């Protein structure tokens, strides 16, 4: 049941990415290009997604537990440390170069474009290498 629920969530999430236009890098890059061919559509995606999630979480997290687990697994860390900020900065540069972030890139793999395949392969490599490289940079791993 957990896997089925996750499959359905994945399909709905992917449909949301496709319908909203977020799975199209050209639309993402135009959203980010305020000084040029600006397309504000993505602000509407974000607003609707956050509003629905905020509302839904209020209802769901008021329950004692989720349907198919014994407890909720909410991210525990609260500190805004160098690692978080540096990671987000890197992420934004990559997002701005390609117009892809992880969800849309995975979803767009199904459109069979070689560019998407290259991006996703590099992204997986980055996910694998990132923590190893960071472990060698004490300034990043030190708390605070």
């Amino acid at each position, binding site marked *: 049941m957990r896997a089925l629920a996750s499959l359905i969530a994945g399909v709905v999430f992917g449909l949301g990415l496709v319908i909203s236009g*977020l799975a199209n890098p050209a639309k993402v890059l135009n959203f980010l290009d305020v000084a*040029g061919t600006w397309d504000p559509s993505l602000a509407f995606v974000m607003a609707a997604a956050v509003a629905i999630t905020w509302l839904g979480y209020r209802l769901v997290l008021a329950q004692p537990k989720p349907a198919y687990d014994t407890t909720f697994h909410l991210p525990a860390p609260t500190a805004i440390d160098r690692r978080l*900020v540096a990671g987000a900065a890197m992420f934004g540069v990559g997002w701005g170069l390609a117009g892809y972030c992880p969800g849309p890139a995975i979803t767009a793999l199904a459109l069979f474009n070689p*560019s998407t395949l290259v991006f996703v392969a590099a992204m997986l490599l*980055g996910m694998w290498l*990132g923590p190893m490289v960071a472990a060698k940079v004490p300034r990043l791993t030190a708390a605070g």
Partner: protein
Amino acid sequence: MDPTTFTPVSSLIGGALIGVAAVLMMATTGRVAGVSGIVSRLLPPYQDGEAPSRTAFVAGLLLAPMLYTVGSGSAIAHTVSSNLPLLALAGLLVGAGAVLGSGCSSGHGVCGIARRSPRSIASTLMFMATAFLTVFVMRHLVGA
């Protein structure tokens, strides 16, 4: 760059679907729908028994474009750069940045902001800032 059509209605609908998917994940598995977290934890080493539901979520993302095309009968607008070295660099940055920064546009930008997590708000502000800056540099200074 080529302009894209401003699509407030479909972007609101798509964004709402992303929100519904995030709420469904929390209601069933008790976890945030963060794509980079789900995908990066599918790489070894496996730390918990969540691999089946993570695989199912990713399968759902991949199924979505096909379901959309079959259901709507219309093609998916999708334009991505054909500069493969640039996409590889972008993928590395997105993958490493998302893992170091503990999340991406979905985990921080949607689920985290909906939980009003200070870490997620900081992350989203940071990656938005570097993404806007990157597009400005690439399109208006470098002219790529």
